């Protein structure tokens, strides 16, 4: 038992935050938009994970002679390829399904990377202040002014394109917003009683940061993270579209769009369906994010959207 006993102050605080989360969830459940978004998103995630049980096709299997088969409801289409085939006769449905994994994985993993970097730097910057703060914030300014697309493209030009690099690049290019938000929150929390109390009893800085400050800045990060997942998924598809994303043959929505663009006049489904998939995913996340923000209101009114 060499852990110091938790102070009653902290317990009180913990209870308060638990209660807040409970309220948040209830508020979420009352918002039709958030419920719709949540259900849609759960469906997308569920499908993305489990679809292989029901739909076992190989996303790479080519049938060159059946290329550009339209979706089943169109003349010339068949249920063998419910959403038609692409330029190499691969099943579009299964490729969209596999594509969802790439998009979601890159989206969430990049946000985690960005969150990690942003939270760490934001906490440090806000809590320690002084020169550390100003250096970190200056660097943040520079990143802010750097055109995002150009930054990611030039880093990928150095690293080469793989899924891992993509996550790293998107994540590391996007830490600024988190760092700034966290820093703002930290600045306002820093002077609160319970932090001052912890400091006065000689608790180490790192402990204060992790145990007292961090839990209290989590909710803005949650809202922000949700919004950013959506943005990152769009950026990933944009990079894939430019040929800078995950390399072939692994299907991604952005690359499917890019490949389909050549066939725009005679295979509308190739440019339409992956885009629809992106839109539905983003829509569900945005609905959820809006709901979250409203639920956590009024504390979070100034989160950039």
């Amino acid at each position, binding site marked *: 038992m060499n852990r110091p006993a938790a102070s009653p102050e902290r317990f009180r605080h913990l209870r308060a935050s638990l209660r807040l989360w409970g309220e948040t969830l209830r508020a979420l459940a009352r918002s039709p938009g958030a419920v719709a978004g949540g259900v849609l998103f759960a469906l997308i995630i569920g499908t993305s994970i489990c679809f292989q049980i029901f739909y076992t096709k190989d996303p790479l299997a080519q049938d*060159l002679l059946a290329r550009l088969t339209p979706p089943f409801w169109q003349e010339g289409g068949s249920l063998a390829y419910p959403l038609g085939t692409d330029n190499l006769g691969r099943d579009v449905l299964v490729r969209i399904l596999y594509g969802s994994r790439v998009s979601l994985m890159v989206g969430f993993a990049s946000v985690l990377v960005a969150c990690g970097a942003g939270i760490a730097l934001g906490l440090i910057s806000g809590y320690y202040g002084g020169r550390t703060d100003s250096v970190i914030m200056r660097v943040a300014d520079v990143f802010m002014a750097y055109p995002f697309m150009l930054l990611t493209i030039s880093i990928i030009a150095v690293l080469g*394109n793989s899924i891992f690099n993509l996550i790293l690049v998107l994540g590391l290019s996007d830490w600024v917003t988190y760092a700034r938000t966290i820093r703002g929150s930290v600045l306002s929390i820093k002077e609160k009683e319970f932090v001052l109390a912890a400091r006065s009893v000689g608790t180490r800085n790192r402990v204060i940061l992790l145990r007292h400050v961090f839990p209290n800045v989590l909710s803005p990060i949650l809202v922000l993270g949700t919004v950013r997942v959506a943005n990152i998924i769009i950026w990933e598809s944009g990079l894939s579209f430019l*040929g800078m994303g995950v*390399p072939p043959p692994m299907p991604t929505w952005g690359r499917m769009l890019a490949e389909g663009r050549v*066939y725009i006049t005679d295979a509308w489904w190739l440019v339409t369906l992956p885009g629809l998939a992106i839109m539905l995913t983003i829509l569900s996340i945005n609905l959820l994010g809006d709901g979250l923000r409203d639920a956590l209101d009024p504390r979070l009114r100034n989160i950039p959207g």
Partner: protein
Amino acid sequence: MKKKTASTILGIMLALVLAVGPALAKDKNTLVVVQEAEPVGLDIMQSSIQTTMSVGYNIHDTILKPQEDATVKPGMVEKWEKVDDLTWKFTLVKGATFHNGEPINAAAVKFSFDRLMSDALKSPHKGKLTSFKGVEVLDDRTFKMSTSQPYAPGLYMLAQYLFVVPPEYVKKVGDAEYNLNPVGSGPYKLDKWVKGQEILLTAYDKYYGPKPAYHKLVFKGVPEEASRIASLMTGEADVISGVPVQQRQKIVDSGKAYLTDQMGSMNYLGLNTYEKPFSDVKVRQAVNYAVNRPLINKALFKDKAILCTGPISPRTFGADPGLKPYAYDPVKAKLLLAEAGYPNGFETRLAFGTYMPQVQEQAEAIAADLAKVGIKVKLEPYERAVMWDKYKNKLHQMYIYFWDDAPEPDRYVYSLFHSKSRDYYYKNEQVDALLDKGRSTMDPAARAKVYNEIDRILYQDAPWIYLYVIPEVYGVANAVDYKGLRDGYLIMNTAKPKK
């Protein structure tokens, strides 16, 4: 005060929006050509990029007119004679001038040759003319050019690459400015270049040759395939380049335009024969048997591609007519792989440049075929710079590149296979010797035999997976009569209104 500011801001924004020039009014004396991209410069000596060359060839004339069968016809040079195996003597037409009025004379030819060969210009065409020692001016209209060794493709190379530029003007403005504002000797002169929009050329009224049928020639760059085709369909464009296979039938069916398929692009899949596993000829033959080219041709190119037998395109002088393309035979491929010690195949990498048209689907189709005989292929799409860099540093295992389906075999077989040229992935002394012989054999029939042999040897030795010549199609509006050229340069003085 506030209102004023607001309305000023609005005004500026509106002005921005409206500050767009009106579309160029099109008349029947104007020919609009839409290419895949806008040229980066217009000095044809400084670039080997297709879009630049196509505009450049309309502005710049070479001394002779290259023909589709690798022979030449008179142009700026009205007659020539062979002095001996090493020397030609040329006579220029009388009274020809550059677009700025400077006379086209032997001194200008010499200046142009020297400029092309100079280190300062870093011309990509320099390598094509290194066999020539220089230009010897005899008098105002005549000059001699000689080579150190007999050089069979000489006249054709001069016809392709010895562009003639006005010495006074070039000296006055310098290379960088010349690249933006060239003054040439060709049928069209540069009128104005609106960057990012269009290049406007007008016929040069004192051109020494026949006048082009169209007085004005407009080049535009539109990267989107769909957009180029739409512009042809709406009549915005008269000629468009880069029509993808799947759109071709649509153009024909529209009844508004037709296709020229003179130009071909010979795609090939190079193998790194310096390293395992492709150092073994059996493996190289095996992969040639493993790729189902007839199916790829049918599915991706609507059976319009020409399957290649060996390194010399079937349409080109010197191709051995006795050869048959490698058949699709996965069983034989597996057998050969087993003999080479790879009964279960192996893993390898296939690089391709993302800038090549339709290349990714070819790469994916080929990879799928190779997977069927146990060869696992990792695809490596690279941008142009990386692709080229890795190519030259011998870092590829398999790579897809292409060469234009040119009429003169020496031009690319020498470049690609002679160990004095590119020694990146393959070396064969016997081929080296034959290539040298092909270069110096002046009699066409004897020369054809040499290239036949090269074709056979390389067919057997298979340093490439021989793929196909894909027709590079141009769409041409029905009102225009234009055939197109094998190397694809859009030399538009041959176009005329259709009756």
